[in-house]
């Protein structure tokens, strides 16, 4: 039989194989034609549960993350009772918490610690990042770059289905003997190594979550680089795409050391190793049976190597969302787009070399402290550049005060406060006084809560019409906005005073025993009331969200009259398979608003010149 080889496409094959392959190819092509005419049915499970479509996965992430955010918020509301009225039985809910957590409705310190550790963990890893990256990133990025889906749809599905078990493990840990993890979201050894069972589950949960994140970040980077439409050069990306791109690199390269650290801590807890356990430890009066010779600082280095870039993962997508909404609602291009992009890249890089500013008080040498202090001061520069550019973008704009724009506008000063209050923390000398006080809690919550979460709200109001084809109600939106803005400041602003007065964080009684800080301690009542009112303020949002899905005003593909591809080139909602009726070709930058000599005040990125 002939061994003759023929070339089929760019592949060498034996002739008989080529013949068979050709017949197969014709069969496959016929099947694909049937696909193109929508003649395949995937069934309920493959369409809505194990879907590989980025839009479905984005919605899955969105719902799951919002539920976790609400739950994490609930944990904090419980804590706030204890802080305002330490030792008092919790009304209504107290009886349901169980004897192990709150006998007689009075919260035990052990339970308070669980709430604290899990509030942080859930908000950061199960709430904000899945919402900002998993939901918004997954849904919007392929649309904004003119792609039919993500590069690896099955990997995308796997990523979501790694996230869910990780989250469920975290939730389930509350029901273990000893309850959930209680050594802070930072899980410092030696405490975390000798802590109750919940900590093991925390580590296993983190393993799942980190895996989910890694799969996702690979997908985002490949998608953005490889699947962008023709004509979409890097400097024509919407700023949101740039933000997700840099964020994905942070996740890709910073998470693995925490993965490694989690393995090491699991080994310490389960296999009796002493990676983090120093020699000669005495726990509850008993000498600990371990080899010793380990380093608690090793955990801190590995943890913060991730956790610092992680906070930029929390803020970058938010900056992206705010940028989109500001450009759209000022009817002007963003001011300083190039500077903002270079700042993003510089920020991403710097975020890897500032981590030990969380460790100034560990007894590190002055040389290394000076190094990290310097890099920390430097990293504030790109953030300021981006924030300033966004402020300047408002100048001379024709501002539409829609609900998304209100949240985006509020983000600017809120993020400003958060960022500025970070500066004394980044200076090693000032940090001696402020480390581990409420000042720190105030600082990072300002960045994440009236910062990132407001930006995420803005994104929900902004992109809801694209996802559902209906608008959310403006009046409910404004009620949601103003009440949230007022109460969220009520919760967090006094924390700076409390921290400066010397009240430490993670105290089960909120600092009641510190006589010198007593005036500051008393503000706990005001702050807790603000927090509970903040919960009430979310009710109009929740009602609006579900009501608008069914009864919101129907809109066409581009109700905001935006220039970016998700609005201008795809219907609302987008075409189920493939997003676009025809794949767009990009011809200009992302923010061509108010271009002179044009009839309309916006020119879509892909519009041919004569249509403008």
């Amino acid at each position, binding site marked *: 039989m002939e061994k003759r080889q023929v070339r089929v496409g*760019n592949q060498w094959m034996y002739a008989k194989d080529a013949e068979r392959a050709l017949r197969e190819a014709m069969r496959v092509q016929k099947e694909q034609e049937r696909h193109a005419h929508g003649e395949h049915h995937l069934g309920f499970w493959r369409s809505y549960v194990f879907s590989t479509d980025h839009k479905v996965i984005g919605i899955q992430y969105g719902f799951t993350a919002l539920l976790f955010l609400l739950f994490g918020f609930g944990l904090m509301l419980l804590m706030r009772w204890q802080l305002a009225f330490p030792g008092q039985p919790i009304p209504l809910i107290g009886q349901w918490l169980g004897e192990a957590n709150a006998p007689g409705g009075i919260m035990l310190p052990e339970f308070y610690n669980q709430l604290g550790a899990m509030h942080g963990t859930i908000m950061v890893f199960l709430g904000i990042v899945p919402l900002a990256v998993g939901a918004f990133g997954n849904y919007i990025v392929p649309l904004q770059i003119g792609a039919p889906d993500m590069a690896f749809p099955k990997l995308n599905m796997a990523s979501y289905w790694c996230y869910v078990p990780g989250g469920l493990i975290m939730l389930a840990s509350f029901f273990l003997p000893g309850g959930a993890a209680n050594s802070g979201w930072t899980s410092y050894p030696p405490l975390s190594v000798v802590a109750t069972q919940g900590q093991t589950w925390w580590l296993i949960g983190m393993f799942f979550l980190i895996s989910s994140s890694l799969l996702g970040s690979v997908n985002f980077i490949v998608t953005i680089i490889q699947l962008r439409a023709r004509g979409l050069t890097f400097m024509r990306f919407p700023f949101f795409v740039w933000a997700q791109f840099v964020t994905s690199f942070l996740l890709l*390269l910073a998470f693995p050391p925490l993965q490694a650290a989690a393995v090491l801590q699991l080994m310490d807890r389960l296999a009796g190793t002493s990676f983090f356990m120093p020699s000669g430890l005495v726990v509850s009066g008993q000498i600990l049976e371990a080899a010793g010779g380990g380093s608690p600082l090793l955990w801190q*280095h590995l943890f913060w190597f991730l956790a610092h870039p992680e906070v930029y993962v929390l803020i970058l997508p938010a900056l992206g969302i705010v940028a989109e909404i500001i450009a759209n609602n000022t009817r002007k291009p963003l001011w300083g787009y190039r500077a903002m992009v270079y700042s993003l890249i510089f920020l991403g890089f710097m975020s890897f070399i500032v981590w*030990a500013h969380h*460790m100034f008080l560990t007894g590190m*040498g*002055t040389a*290394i402290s000076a190094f990290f202090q310097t890099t920390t001061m430097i990293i504030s520069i790109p953030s300021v550049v981006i924030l300033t550019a966004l402020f300047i973008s408002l100048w001379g704009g024709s501002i539409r005060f829609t609900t998304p724009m209100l949240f985006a506008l509020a983000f600017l000063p809120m993020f400003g406060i958060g960022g500025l209050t970070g500066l004394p923390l980044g200076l090693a000398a000032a940090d001696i006084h402020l480390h581990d006080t409420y000042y720190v809690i105030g600082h990072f919550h300002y960045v994440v809560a009236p910062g990132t979460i407001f930006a995420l709200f803005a994104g929900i109001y902004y992109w809801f019409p694209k996802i559902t084809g209906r608008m959310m109600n403006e009046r409910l939106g404004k009620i949601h906005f103003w009440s949230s803005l007022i109460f969220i400041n009520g919760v967090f602003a006094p924390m700076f005073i409390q921290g400066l007065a010397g009240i430490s964080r993670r105290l089960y009684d909120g600092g009641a025993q510190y006589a010198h800080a007593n005036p500051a301690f008393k503000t706990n009542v005001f702050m807790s009331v603000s927090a509970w009112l903040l919960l009430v303020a979310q009710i109009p949002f929740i009602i609006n969200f579900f009501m608008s899905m069914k009864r919101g005003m129907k809109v066409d593909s581009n109700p905001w009259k935006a220039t970016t591809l998700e609005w201008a080139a795809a219907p609302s909602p987008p075409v189920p398979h493939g997003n676009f009726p025809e794949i767009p070709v990009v011809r200009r930058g992302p923010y061509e608003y108010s271009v002179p000599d044009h009839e309309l005040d916006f020119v879509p990125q892909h519009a041919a010149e004569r249509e403008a």
Partner: protein
Amino acid sequence: MSGHSVEEIKRETRVYLMVFVGLAILTVVTVAVSKLHLTTGPAILVALLIASVKGFLVAGYFMHLLSEKKLIYSVLALTVVFLLVLMLLPLGSAYGGIGG
């Protein structure tokens, strides 16, 4: 897919086999050197040097890094920078602090 000719692929195969021989030899060398029981400093240096050469061969030829695209180089270069940061900076924190 590279779309190389049959001759080129056969030539690459010869390279792979030569690399294999090189790796085998270097393995023997590194074990032999360890039997000399050098002091810690030189021992680490030599071991890492030989490992780096072996690594270069695997990465350069088996993984085709020597003929890879610029984008891959950039990603790897960035990664190596952060790897060095992770390896070196924590060591710096062990010196000059309280208790020396």
